């Protein structure tokens, strides 16, 4: 692919900048842009054109993102042209020369699968890439394989890429690592699996443990039973031993009871009851005496108490006076102050009145008081005045402005034109749009048709035997497929028969050879006599005999005949020989009968076979003829089409391709028709549209205008007309609206004037009661009103003070008279005192009298209590006496001492019985549920001395059992714990899940590791393969370039092996000195890489479609001589592909002009706009 033209329509700093590469013969293009002129921008634009402009681009500073555009004309080595425009956007960014979107793959066809990255690496060389290449050479120590691979792809950092894959793989697995993912996961897996195994309980183990436990439990139960038995026995003996002292005590008590004799049993509490009754009697008598003494003293105190009854009777009246005393004293203090206030208010009122209406007295002031209605009305009117005045002014302004507006709109309306009728155009457009993108369809169909035509032409060219056009093919008379089938069957049949025949002939021939071989074999073992031989021998003998007979019996010897019979011998010998000969043959015939028979059989067989061979020969002839006839017929069938047919099978294939071509021809016809129809429709609608447009006085049609453009224009006209109509309608509305506004404003102005007049009227009326002039201003009236309010407030305050003074004087007089009346009736001495002091004195007298009365009531209550105590003590004494009498009657005694003796006896009886009960109870504790009597009987049978020994023996036995039991219990406990630990827990399963989890990591890691490891290994091998395949030609060519690039500082490149046996590159000086890459200067290494790179590219360009080679300022570090040498080599590239040499060094232009033949060189200067 080559660039013919590049056109930066709007990109970065460029606007409409064109680069023309199309000049014939030119192949080396220097594109010169000084700094800031946009050399890098041009490179980006070029990539953007081919692969799309990236979403984030730095090149949208002059032109907006959406406006960025680059165009180019491209040509392929097979001559195919293409013109493309690339715009910035998300979709449909590739356009054709007519600005119509086209699919991206149209431009990709020119790029032949080279991706953007490949384009940037393989087909581009810049200073940085050259430097990295040189560095990589050093890093790889001139490794041939790596260097070649890198030079071939332009990929740098191959070594790092491989290293990165290896490092990544090692993170997953390393044979002896403990941290790599897989190694670690395997450790976890083994650990979890072991834990799972340890935690799992084998089912058999559980069964066995369980059985052992059950056995132990049963043993324990048996020992427990024995233990119980012994314990019972021991316990019984111990009981008996312990019961023995109590049995003795029982006997003693029984004897003591007998000794007591008959006793009267008194209640247990008898002594206590008696002593209590005696104590109660004494106590009651003492209390009675005390009460009597207290009564006498109380009565004396009562008699000494005296009370003033009259004072107490007036207690309420005195208290009432006392309560009013405080307010009396307050009133006496306040009276002078209130009087002063009254005078002050009256003076103020008079002053105000003289200001409002001089000459009027306070009494007449009332004439000035207004009702609330009058006052409110005055205030309202005063307030309204300002509003009304403002309203009138506003209305008048609005009326003026509305009038101006109305006039303006009227003027605008007059200036607009009347609308056009676009109905027809709209209908025509609607029909045209409904049809869709007819031209697009037409274009597509046309290009599809072209493609189909091309395909069918190619197909046609590939059709063998026959040449001609598709149309000729359509009319070509060819036989039907059925005919071909028929011939094929016939040919097959004939050839099968022929095959069969020849195989039979082959068989026969082999058999015949075998027979002949048999005959030959037989004959090799000596001549085999035949019947024929015998017959011939016998005939000779007969002939001899006839000669003998003639000579011997008829004596008519015939020497002639005899000589003929046997010329060598006399007749007798000859005859004898013939007899012997015949006999010998007969004998041999008999003796060698088998061989004879075999030979006879073989000979007969041979004869038969020769006959059959002749038959087959004739059949073969017939078949050959039939085949020829058939072939003649076959050719005849094709005569009409002038085709010499191949075999029917091949011709069937031919026919199917023929049929396919016919179908294509039909398809082509259909496409052509469809295109013609489309064209007709477009023309028809175009005409319709033209008519519609011309009725609207629009230009009918531009020569170059497409149907779509025409539709667009029609739509624009329609849109414009509609807009104009809409604008005019809006204006008319505006005029109507402003007329209405004007009228309304006038009305409002008039209304405001009327309202102001009405107000003036009301104002005059409202002022009358105040006697003010009609011209008085609202603010003045408001001031008068406020003064009047103050005046009336003062008058009211003075009035309220006057009323209060009257009330206070009345109150003071009433109190004096009340106190005086009380003193008169109760304490006449107090009348001399002032009323308030007299009231205080009366109060203190009353308090004293009330205290005395309370004391009297207390004394009377105490007397009552003492009387009651006296009565209670008498009753208690009587009850105690009755109790004593009752006790004595129960003991059948009349005196107290006898009662005491009976009490002692009764207590004795009771004590013995209680002790006996106690002993019995104690003994019952030893019987263990047996009756006391049978226990006593049993115990009596035991020997008391023997008991302790029996018990010790039992104890020993029990202790032994205890030890055994404890041991068993311990064992059972341990086993139970073990068994209980098997509780259905899921610990083993959880460990198994952990193992599975680790296993999952192993799997994932293994997959990833294998992929990475394989990738690295495959790449290594491919690098090595590439070296093997390309080493010789590439290094040879690079060896030619390297001396030129180094100005013969080096003579050639050679490969050698390093200490690790790797093939490495060496430079060879003209003197024969070999220099390794690490012995070269940076610049030389760069040139070595450049030589390799150029040699690889040259090789690649010789096969497949070459892309332009972009060289981006690679010579900036070269001196002039080396730069010149490089330019010469690059110029040689022109024969292979286009070279675009970007630079911002003007010096390089001069060098290029020297180094590159003028015909090939073209200089382009970039200028930013």
């Amino acid at each position, binding site marked *: 692919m080559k660039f013919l033209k590049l056109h930066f329509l709007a990109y970065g700093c460029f606007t409409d900048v064109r680069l023309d590469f199309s000049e014939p013969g030119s192949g080396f293009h220097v594109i010169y842009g000084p700094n800031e002129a946009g050399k890098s921008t041009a490179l980006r634009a070029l990539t953007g054109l081919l692969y799309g402009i990236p979403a984030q681009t730095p090149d949208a500073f002059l032109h907006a993102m959406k406006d960025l555009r680059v165009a180019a004309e491209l040509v392929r080595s097979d001559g195919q042209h293409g013109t493309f425009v690339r715009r910035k956007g998300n979709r449909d960014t590739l356009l054709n020369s007519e600005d119509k979107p086209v699919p991206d793959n149209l431009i990709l066809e020119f790029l032949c*699968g*080279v*991706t953007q*990255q*490949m384009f*940037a*690496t*393989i087909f581009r060389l*810049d200073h*940085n890439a050259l430097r990295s290449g040189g560095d990589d050479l050093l890093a790889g120590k001139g490794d041939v394989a790596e260097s*070649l691979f890198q030079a071939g*792809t332009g990929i*740098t*950092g*191959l070594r*790092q*890429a491989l290293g990165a894959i290896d490092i990544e793989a090692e993170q997953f*697995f390393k044979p002896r690592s403990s941290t790599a993912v897989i190694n670690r996961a*395997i450790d976890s*897996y083994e650990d979890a699996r072991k834990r799972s195994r340890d*935690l*799992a*309980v*084998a*089912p*058999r*183990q*559980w069964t066995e443990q369980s059985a052992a436990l059950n056995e132990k439990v049963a043993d324990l139960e048996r020992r427990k039973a024995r233990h119980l038995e012994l314990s019972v026995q021991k316990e019984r003996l111990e009981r008996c031993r312990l019961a023995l002292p109590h049995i003795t005590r029982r006997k003693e008590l029984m004897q003591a009871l007998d000794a007591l004799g008959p006793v009267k049993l008194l209640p247990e509490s008898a002594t206590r009851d008696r002593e209590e009754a005696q104590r109660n009697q004494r106590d009651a008598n003492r209390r009675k005496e005390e009460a009597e003494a207290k009564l006498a003293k109380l009565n004396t105190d009562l008699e000494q108490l005296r009370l003033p009854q009259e004072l107490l009777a007036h207690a309420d009246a005195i208290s009432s006076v006392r309560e009013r005393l405080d307010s009396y004293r307050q009133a006496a203090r306040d009276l002078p102050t209130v009087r002063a206030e009254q005078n002050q208010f009256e003076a103020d009122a008079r002053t105000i009145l003289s200001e409002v209406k001089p000459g009027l007295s306070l009494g007449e002031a009332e004439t000035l008081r207004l009702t609330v209605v009058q006052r409110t009305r005055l205030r309202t009117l005063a307030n309204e005045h300002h509003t009304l005045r403002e309203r009138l002014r506003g209305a008048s302004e609005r009326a003026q402005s509305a009038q101006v507006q109305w006039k303006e709109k009227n003027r605008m309306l007059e200036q607009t034109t009347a609308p056009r009728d676009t109905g027809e155009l709209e209908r025509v457009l609607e029909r045209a749009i409904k049809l869709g993108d007819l031209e697009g369809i037409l274009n597509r169909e046309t290009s599809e048709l072209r493609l189909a035509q091309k395909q069918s032409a190619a197909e046609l060219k590939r059709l063998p035997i026959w040449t001609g056009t598709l149309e000729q093919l359509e009319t070509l008379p060819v036989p039907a497929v059925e005919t071909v089938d028929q011939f094929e069957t016939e040919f097959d049949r004939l050839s099968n028969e022929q095959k069969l025949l020849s195989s039979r002939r082959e068989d026969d021939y082999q058999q015949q050879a075998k027979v002949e071989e048999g005959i030959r074999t037989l004959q090799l073992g000596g001549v085999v006599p035949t019947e024929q031989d015998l017959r011939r021998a016998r005939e000779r003998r007969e002939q001899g005999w006839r000669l003998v007979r003639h000579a011997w019996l008829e004596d008519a010897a015939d020497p002639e005949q005899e000589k003929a019979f046997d010329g060598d011998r006399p007749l007798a010998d000859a005859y004898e020989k013939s007899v012997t000969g015949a006999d010998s043959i007969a004998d041999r015939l008999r003796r060698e009968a088998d061989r004879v028979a075999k030979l006879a059989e073989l000979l007969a067989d041979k004869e038969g076979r020769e006959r059959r061979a002749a038959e087959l020969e004739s059949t073969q002839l017939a078949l050959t003829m039939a085949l020829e006839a058939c072939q003649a017929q076959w050719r005849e069938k094709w005569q009409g089409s002038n085709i010499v047919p191949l075999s029917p099978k091949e011709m069937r294939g031919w026919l199917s391709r023929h049929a396919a071509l016919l179908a294509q021809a039909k398809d082509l016809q259909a496409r052509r028709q469809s295109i013609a129809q489309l064209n007709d429709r477009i023309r028809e609608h175009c005409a319709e549209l033209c008519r519609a447009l011309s009725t609207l006085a629009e230009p009918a049609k531009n020569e170059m205008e497409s149907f779509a453009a025409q539709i667009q224009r029609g739509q624009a006209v329609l849109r414009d007309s509609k807009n104009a109509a809409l604008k005019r309608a809006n204006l008319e509305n505006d005029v109507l609206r402003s007329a209405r506004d004007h009228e309304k404003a006038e009305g409002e102005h008039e209304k405001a004037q009327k309202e102001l007049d009405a107000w003036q009227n009301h104002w005059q009326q409202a002022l009358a009661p105040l006697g003010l002039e009609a011209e008085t201003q609202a603010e003045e009236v408001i001031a008068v009103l406020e003064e009047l309010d103050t005046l009336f407030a003062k008058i009211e305050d003075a009035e309220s003070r006057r009323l209060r003074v009257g009330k206070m004087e009345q109150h003071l007089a009433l109190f004096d008279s009340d106190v005086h009346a009380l003193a008169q009736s109760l304490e006449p001495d107090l009348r001399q005192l002032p009323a308030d002091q007299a009231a205080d004195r009366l109060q203190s007298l009353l308090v004293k009298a009330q205290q005395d009365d309370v004391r009297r009531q207390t004394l009377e209550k105490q007397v009552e209590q003492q009387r009651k105590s006296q009565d209670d003590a008498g009753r208690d004494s009587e009850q105690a006496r009755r109790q004593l009498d009752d006790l004595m009657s129960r003991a059948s005694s009349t005196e107290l001492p006898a009662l005491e003796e009976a009490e002692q006896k009764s207590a004795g009886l009771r004590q013995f019985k209680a002790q006996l009960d106690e002993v019995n109870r104690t003994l019952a504790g030893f019987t263990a549920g047996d009756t006391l009597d049978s226990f006593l009987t049993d115990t009596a049978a035991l020997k008391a001395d023997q008991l302790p020994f029996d018990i010790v023996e039992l104890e020993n036995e029990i202790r032994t059992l205890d030890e055994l039991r404890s041991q068993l219990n311990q064992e059972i406990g341990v086993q139970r714990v073990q068994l209980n630990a*098997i509780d*259905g*827990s*899921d*610990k*083993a*399963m959880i460990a*198994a*899940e*952990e193992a*599975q989890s680790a*296993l*999952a990591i*192993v*799997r*994932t890691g*293994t*997959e*990833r590791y*294998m*992929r*990475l490891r*394989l*990738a690295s290994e*495959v*790449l290594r*091998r*491919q690098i090595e*393969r*590439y070296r093997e*395949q390309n080493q010789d030609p590439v290094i040879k060519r690079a060896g030619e370039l390297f001396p030129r690039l180094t100005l013969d500082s080096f003579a050639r490149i050679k490969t050698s092996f390093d200490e690790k046996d790797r093939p490495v590159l060496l430079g060879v000086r003209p003197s024969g000195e070999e220099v390794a890459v690490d012995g070269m200067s940076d610049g030389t290494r760069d040139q070595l890489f450049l030589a390799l790179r150029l040699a690889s590219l040259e*090789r690649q360009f010789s096969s497949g479609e070459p892309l332009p080679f972009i060289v981006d300022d690679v010579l900036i570090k070269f001196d002039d001589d080396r730069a010149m040498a490089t330019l010469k080599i690059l110029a040689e590239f022109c024969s292979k592909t286009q070279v675009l040499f970007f630079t911002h060094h003007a010096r390089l232009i001069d060098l290029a002009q020297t180094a590159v033949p003028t015909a090939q060189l073209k200089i382009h200067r970039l200028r930013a706009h």
Partner: protein
Amino acid sequence: MKFVHAADIHLDSPLQGLERYEGAPVDELRGATRRALENLVQLSIGEKVEFVLIAGDVYDGDWKDYNTGLFFARQMARLREAGIKVYLIRGNHDAASQITRELTLPDNVRVFPSRKPETENLPDIGVAIHGQSYSTQAVTNDLSAGYPLATEGLFNIGMLHTAAGGREGHANYAPCTLDGLLSKGYHYWALGHVHEREVLHEDPWIVFPGNLQGRHARELGSKGCSLVTVVDGRVHLVEHRELDVVRWCGSTVNAEGAADIAELLERSRRVLLTELDRAENRLLAVRLVVHGACQAHKALEMHEEQFVSECRALANDIGGGHLWVEKVRLQTRAAVNLDEIAQRADPLGELVRFIRGLPSDGATLGSLLSEFKDLKQKLPLEVRHGNDAINLEDPALIRALLGDVEQILVARLLEQGGAK
């Protein structure tokens, strides 16, 4: 009358393929087969069923922990307390299990013998159950042939552990035919052994209920038992009841045209949300397959582990402890046309052609395999055998990986060059 039909409990068989990672719901997922069995018991009690049928494979064959048996016995005891009987046949795994031989089950569990089929008549509820257990692991004859004909006047149920006509992924034990089963005149055949739920026939019903709990990424979707309602001696309703605690699912993320990893994560997020929505609050083990040609392929290939971690973090974020990303399988491709590159004369084209020619190059495949001998020595046996085996001696393994290798190398080499 209702009864429950379950099979293939594989109690304590561990879930496979779940890598643990930061924030993974490990506790929630622990002992899933046990939880599923508890769910079965709970369902039976809640639905007040007359009896429970277990059509074989209570245990996992090589699992030897007696605790497992005890747990099973305990669950059966719960059913006994609720007055529910259990009818059980032993499957191939049970026959292989040591637990079966040593464990005594509660008396509400009736295990059918293995010598010959037997019938359990339950006249009070009008049911006859026929069944036969496996005596050995591999039963290759048609057990159903020996089953008696239906008992007249009762609702007849046949219990059989079988692969029926053979099912993929299941050993063809006790093979039988549909016609053979139908010829017995039973109303319901309770089958077991096949882990995928399948109704082979309706009225009479022949049902594989599937296993109770999926255990790896090949046992996808809802798992549980069949709840059967019988009215007037006929099957009225057969319902699938979900019992699984963890559900396995496989989802694909279409990476076509994705520009970067962030976009892929967003797409993955949407896919995960959809799956979460479907799982109805159940724990979900998801395998994400990311496929398609995209710009993001390079970044993805070079940072695969990081992407997987981010997917998992995402799952933690939106799953609220209900989402386990089992595996993220990357099947993305570079957004370049490798077929076109393969036709080019440059070293890259030759690299692609070399890789594409490898599958038919036995010698090179063999030498590539030898690169993995260290790994092979180290890998546990379980990885190299059984399901999803990674057989390091099989050239087919390398062949399968070569497509990935092509993608890895093209992405990295172009990345390397493109960086300039």
